[in-house]
Structure formats: C-alpha cells, structure tokens
C-alpha cells in the first residue's frame, strides 16, 4: 500500500521481525512506517470487539498502532524507531494469559 520513493537519500538497512517473519526497514523509520512499507496493514485486533486496526495518525495521538515490541505490549509503533533485531508482535484482542 505504501512504497519508498526511488531516489531517496541512502539510509542503512535495518532488519526486524514481525510475528517472527523477517522484514527490512531503513534506519530512522518508525516501526509503524516499517510495517506499512512491508505490506502489514493490520497491526492488532481490538480488545473490545476484536476488530482489525492499522496505523491511523502516525503522530502518537490515536493509539491504534499499538504493538508488542521486544516483549513489551501496548507500544505505539509510530513513536518507536526501528532497531536491528527488534521483535515486533501484533496484538490480538483480549488475550488470555499463558498459564
């Protein structure tokens, strides 16, 4: 749905995983941008109804792009810059805790 312009200034490639799948981003990008640019439109389902949500405002206002980053839930993907080795997980509705 989004693509990088062809003639951008060079930025280092950053590798992270989304639900275990490897994706590539560019240094300086937000996690939300990295997800959208690798075709991940739905980043979570809501705790209330289980409805799918994706990044909406990209400026830290709407809290729709909440994901789990390196094991910490409810992080704003649009406010966190990508890092090599980062593990991003999409959040699924009202999960039960693991026993």
């Amino acid at each position: 749905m989004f693509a990088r312009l062809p003639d951008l200034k060079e930025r280092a490639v950053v590798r992270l995983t989304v639900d275990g799948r490897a994706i590539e981003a560019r240094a300086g990008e937000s996690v939300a941008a990295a997800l959208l640019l690798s075709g991940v439109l739905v980043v979570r389902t809501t705790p209330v109804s289980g409805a799918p949500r994706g990044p909406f405002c990209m400026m830290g206002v709407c809290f729709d792009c909440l994901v789990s980053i390196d094991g910490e839930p409810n992080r704003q993907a649009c406010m966190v810059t990508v890092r090599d080795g980062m593990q991003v997980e999409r959040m699924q509705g009202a999960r039960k805790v693991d026993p």
Partner: protein
Amino acid sequence: MRDSMIDVAVIGGGPAGLAAAATCAEAGLTTYLIDEQASPGGQIYRAIADTPVADRAILGADYWRGEALVAAFQRSGAVHLASALAWDVTPDLEVAVSVGGGSRFLRARRVIIASGALERPMPVPGWTLPGVMTVGAGQILLKSSGAVPSGRVVLAGCGPLLYLLAAQYRRAGAEVALILDTTPAANFKRALRHLPEFLLAGSYLAKGAELLLSAQRSVEIVRGVDSIVAAGEGQLRSVRYNVRGQEREVSADLLLLHQGVVPNVNLSMAIGCAHDWDGEQLCWSPRLDAWSNATVGGVAIAGDGAGIGGAAAAAERGRIAALDAARHLGVLSEAQRDLRAAGPRAALRRAMRGRRFLDLLYAPAPSFRVPADNAVACRCEEVVARQIRDCVALGVPGPNQMKSFLRCGMGPCQGRLCGLTVTETIAAARGVAPGMVGHYRIRPPIKPITLGEIALLPKSEAAIKAVARG
C-alpha cells in the same frame, strides 16, 4: 538527567517550541526542549533534519523554512531532550519526563508548553478500518520515510492540507485517484466579509490558488460531498459518498481523511489550565494573557496548542512567550522585553492576517463533526454515536459522567480522538453550546507509561511534589 533546577522547560519541538527554546537560551537562560519526536521540527517540519526525501521540490519551500528555525535552535545552546515524553507538570513546575522507559522530574522555573496541533477527528462510518488514515499521517510517511501510497488513493475532507498533500504526492510522482471535498457551500458566504483582510495577506492567496490549480490538473475533485462511508470487510475496499442527493461508490485501497487541525490541549488541561470553547475554530483553547501565560502559575502556552495560527505564527508566539519568561526570570527588564517583542508581534500580526477567512471557509460541516448513529466516535472503546445519544436521553449531561456508562474517552488515547466529537454530539443532543457541556477531565500521565516506570520513580522528598487536578 538530574533533579537540578533549570530556568525554562519548553515542551514540544515544533516551530513554537524551537523558537521559544532558542530565544530563552540566547537570553542566557538554562533551557531544555523536551520533545517526543526523535528529531526536531514538530509535525509541520517533521524530520526536517533527517528526511530521506532528496528532491527538495517535493516537500516545497514552506517545509524547508523550518531549517532556519532548527539551525537557530541548535546554535542557541538549548539542551534537546529527544524521544522524551513530558507526562505531567506539577504546580511546583516539576516536569515529569519519560525517556527510554525511565522517568525523572525536571524542575524548572518557567514552563512553556508548545504542544502543537492534532488533526480534528473526522468520524465517518468505517473510519476505523485498516486502510483509512489521516492526511497528516500520509504527509508524515512522506516526510519521515519518503513513502508514498502505491494503490488507489482517495483524499477526503476539507482544508488546505488536503490540497497540499495532493500537490506533494503529484510532485513525488504518486497518483491520487479522487479528492472528495466536504467544504460546505455556505461557508464561503460566511467567510466573505473577511475576504479583504485575506486578500491583503497576499501569500496565502497565491499559495492556495497554486495548490488548487495543481490538484485540478491532475486529480478528479468532487465538491459538495455531504456524507462519506469507508466500506470493506477487515480492510478498506471502497468509499461511498453522497453528493447533491446522489449516492456514489469508488473502490479504494487508501482513504486519507482531514478536516483541519485543533489545539493539542491534553497537557494544558491535565495540569489544570483553564480552557474556553472557541466558537469559530470549534475547539478548546487555553485561556491566556497577552504574553501567552496560562492560568496556572509559571506556565505559558505558545503555538498552535494555544489556538490554531499556523507555523509562521507559532514561531512568533514562541518568541513572545520566551521573552516574557526571560522578563519573569530577571534577565530582561519589562522595557527590554517590550522592545524585543516588537518585531515578533508585527510578524505575528502579518502571519495571522487572513486567518479568520480561512477558519470560516474551512469550518467543517456539522454532519462531519457530529457523526451518524452508526459511526464510531470513540475509537479506543468502540463507542458509536447512537450510544452517546442514548446516554444523553438517560439524563447523562456531560462527557465525564458518560465515562461510567460507555467508557468513551477512557482508552489509551485519553480522549484525543473522541473528545471534540463527544462534546459536540452531547451538545447537539442536549441543544446547548459545547462550552456548556465541557470536555473530559484529562488526567496525568497524559500518555500511558508503565507501572514499572512509576514504581521506579524517585521517592525522595525533594524529587517529587504534587499536581493540581479538577
């Protein structure tokens, strides 16, 4: 970060914050700029220091004006706390700051809040679907990642930003399929008596005309759209809209919504500053004196967070607030402050010329502010407008009392995306003015921080004081 006393804490790194911090630091004050973004510029000049967009023509001259502000800030000696969230300010002006998962209190003698603007919610049915975003979001993706949409794109709403993004996309070689303009036809008549002042402001007109012509050459524009529905199962597939009684539908991969910007008042509200309903800008604005001081002692508010005026005005308002802070702290006399403020005040008057015309012309239609029964008003708690109306019928008079019934405004966004919608919907249902209905009582932390982080806050007497709330 230690718990030592600084002179001025400036919160927010957009034009107002950058100008305020630079002015304070140049006056010899120990100044910290606390900003949530990783690099300075705020949203209007987002990523200006590190955007990957190489072709400067794409983002346009207005964007690059921010470079001078950032350069002046960087020269000034002000300390930049980047990726830092100011989540509370106590009555003793201790600023609670979260950086890298840890919080500290930064004690300041003056605080200047420059929290900027956020996009007014546009709660159309289906706006929670993945594939629906805001025009601002599209622009942020372009500025910070050089990203443009690759599918079928529809822009909808009203206001200059809609056409600016269309122009930026066109210059970047990205295609916009359709613009749905929701500006009510009646607005022009209402705005007309402010047209002469607007014409005097020359530059607006030239810019506006250029944007419009640019859009018209490349995009189909439908004017007078009076309802919009984002449709699709699990993801946006099409946009249905109504124009002059005619229902139409277009397929779409991305719908970008926008109907202007409003002050971001969560921090100023949370720390107890008085706010009033602005009947022309249709939003809450903090109550300020002539030097931008709020009703909470030691706190000033500058830039769009104090009422929408745009980037040029924001920088001047930042300078004016900073000069008064310098006067309070004794590095400028009253006469010196007045003398130095003359230039910024004149520039501010120029920058604000024509603003009322724009406010009235682009005032979003009531039907896009007070949503249809089936539209989600509160995205966090998934509350639809009908539930709000039912609650009013039950005798619930305002947004705070409604929380107990619907939880609207109690989610993580702290009412940022639903506050105006809920207030205006209750007001309309009760038949009273929004100012009578009031806004959510905003509570700190103004953005969620972890319990673990709170548990690790310094517990010594000196480090922590208290915060006034309503």
